[in-house]
């Protein structure tokens, strides 16, 4: 027994050098930004010879929680986010002693709606997507009824007479939140009676565009975008919603469905004409910049032209980079570590 205790003590001692001082950057956050931050982490490790940063895939919300849990070596230095930091999250940060947070906008993530190349191509508007996927839609008199549309042609006779079947992410996914805000809300606003409802009762309006169909027309196909891609390849009648980089990788088998007449492409997302896109961020704990080795070099690598430029390696990985003017501003803010102000947040 005594020997066992000594053994256990030795085990804890063996681990203690790691506690003495961290020399490895730790990053948490969004699984959407993960493929990009990991590429930077690897390039940083190779270029500087320092330990490659550890990048955890925790989701945006989970990352914010860890990031704002406090300052010090046992908390992460960066968090990835597929949306801007919320005011409430910033307040938690400040309360826990993380007063200075630097926001770096790194690019855009387009959400594409696609189908198998075997199917006949067609386009949709946001309002049509809303009418196909919302749980309740207004009838002719503006009264809310359970969505009766079975085929695309029920919405508009010009659309194909195939069953509405859309594979998309589940409610736990940030992609789903973005889809609801970028497509469903905008689509609902395009209907007169709902636009009136928005003015009269914003909460009731929100409930309408946030609720997706549960009768089989919208299929929650899991967080894994590759899975949706494979299901689309097998089922030519179905549509899928997933990140643009997955469409780019599977252009041989999938074709894009233009939304409001605009196709999802690198250029249309970058110049803002394709509206179903969201900005991506990384957040930096400024207080760690001096104590954790390599932080400044890592930021410099992230915003360098080699990574974030139009022909940088992040663009090769599927990130839609910022237009030149925004990129310059983002780079300047990142390198000077300009802290975030509370009143700029929502």
């Amino acid at each position: 027994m005594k020997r066992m205790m000594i053994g256990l003590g030795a085990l804890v001692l063996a681990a203690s050098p790691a506690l003495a001082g961290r020399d490895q950057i730790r990053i948490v956050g969004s699984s959407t930004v993960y493929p990009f931050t990991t590429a930077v982490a690897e390039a940083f490790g190779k270029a500087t010879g320092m330990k490659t940063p550890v990048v955890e895939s925790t989701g945006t919300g989970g990352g914010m929680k860890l990031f704002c849990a406090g300052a010090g070596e046992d908390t992460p230095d960066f968090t990835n986010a597929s949306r801007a930091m919320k005011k409430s999250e910033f307040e938690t940060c400040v309360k826990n002693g993380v007063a200075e947070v630097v926001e770096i906008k790194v690019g855009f993530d387009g959400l594409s709606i696609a189908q198998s190349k075997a199917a006949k191509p067609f386009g949709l508007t946001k309002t049509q997507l809303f009418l196909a996927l919302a749980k309740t839609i207004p009838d002719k008199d503006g009264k809310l009824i359970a969505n009766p549309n079975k085929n695309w042609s029920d919405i508009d006779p010009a659309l194909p007479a195939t069953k509405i079947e859309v594979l998309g992410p589940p409610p736990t996914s940030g992609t789903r939140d973005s889809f609801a805000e970028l497509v469903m809300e905008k689509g609902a606003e395009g209907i007169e009676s709902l636009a009136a409802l928005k003015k009269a009762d914003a909460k009731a309006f929100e409930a309408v565009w946030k609720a997706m169909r549960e009768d089989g027309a919208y299929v929650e196909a899991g967080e894994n975008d590759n899975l949706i891609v494979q299901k689309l390849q097998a089922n030519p009648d179905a549509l899928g919603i997933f990140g643009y980089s997955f469409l780019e990788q599977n252009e041989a088998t999938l074709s894009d469905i233009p939304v409001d007449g605009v196709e999802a492409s690198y250029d249309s997302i970058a110049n803002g004409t394709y509206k179903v896109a969201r900005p991506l961020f990384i957040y930096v704990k400024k207080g760690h910049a001096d104590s954790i080795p390599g932080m400044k070099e890592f930021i410099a690598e992230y915003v360098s032209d080699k990574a974030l430029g139009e022909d940088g390696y992040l663009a090769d990985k599927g990130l839609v980079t910022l237009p030149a003017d925004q990129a310059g501003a983002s780079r300047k803010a990142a390198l000077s570590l300009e802290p975030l102000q509370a009143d700029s947040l929502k």
Partner: protein
Amino acid sequence: MSSLNAQNPTLRRRRAAEARFRRYGAAALALTSLFLAFLIIDIVGKGWPAFVEHRVELPVTLDSRKLAEKNYDGLIKDAIFARFPEAQSRGQRKAVLALFSHSAEQALAAQLAEAPAAAGQTVKAEVLLSDTADLHLKGLSHLADPAAIDALTARLPVTAHFSWRFFSHGDSREAEEAGIRGALIGSLLTVAVALGLGLIFGVAAAIYLEEFAPKNRLTDIIEVNINNLAAVPSIIFGLLGLAVFLNAFGLPRSSPLVGGLVLSLLVLPTIIIAARAALKAVPPSIKEAALGVGASEHQAVFHHVLPLALPGILTGAILGMARAFGETAPLLMIGMVAFIADVPGSISDAATVLPVQIYLWSDLPELAFRSKTAAAIMVLIAVLFAANALAIYLRNRFERRW
């Protein structure tokens, strides 16, 4: 006689029922074999490309200035463009460069460090092709514009090799460079910690409960709770690990030490239950004989009962280990679901494990990661198979029947 039996309706029914039952059994077996065969064929079919890589022998002329500046990237690019004189526009040059892996410059640096060459000389560098070019050559996915790759195969010898890199490299975001060494070592370290602690505490608890503990209400409650613990969802152990090992003890996040501690809690009930059953199966006469010739209780257990129960305990340990090898959920909580490029060297370094690596690769957009995912599954199955085979061998060797 037989004609008499054949006319007996009860007997005929019983025989028919028996034949039917056998057919059901055989059908169930055939169905499960079919599923297994389907799974394995699917995984092997998807995974084999990850074990093959394409390389090209590129003659690199060592420009004196670039060599002095250690600009290996520039040397490689010059050598590539020298072979593609027609690539003048930016788009064409990009398409040509996209055929080669980014690892080329490090490979050249390593090669020159090992065998230095003077400026002006021409050395042959083995350059890995990029994941997209590699998939094109394997016929799995075609490049949008095959002109560049066709020119490459016509001008330089492109050869296929077994990808040792897959076993010798850690994770990478470049699909052609990504390997499972980091995850495999992380898995081994984690399971070693889990099994070490799980065996020590599990066997100690089992011996105490089986041989020494008084039979009363308290030990009954403990016994019921151990059985319950075996059925607790694994994520709960992750939350426990987060609260206790990371927050209270301050052990390093993402480390195999913490992963092993959490998984040891997970496998503990399995080991205790199996060890108790093994101890119970040792005939009481052995212990009584030892006590009869004057051994103390402690001596009887450790010298006679425990060695005879070891094969059974081993079985429990294997079951526990198999579970620990395949677990991902509790590791999410303690930060092991992460991109970790460096191969861990000790139990306190950041590490990930095989099932987590599979999960992370399955979520990446690059097509080449699809075969990496399946290949990692093959490796995980092979590791489990080897561990099981070893344990079965050990058990058969030491097992004793009464």
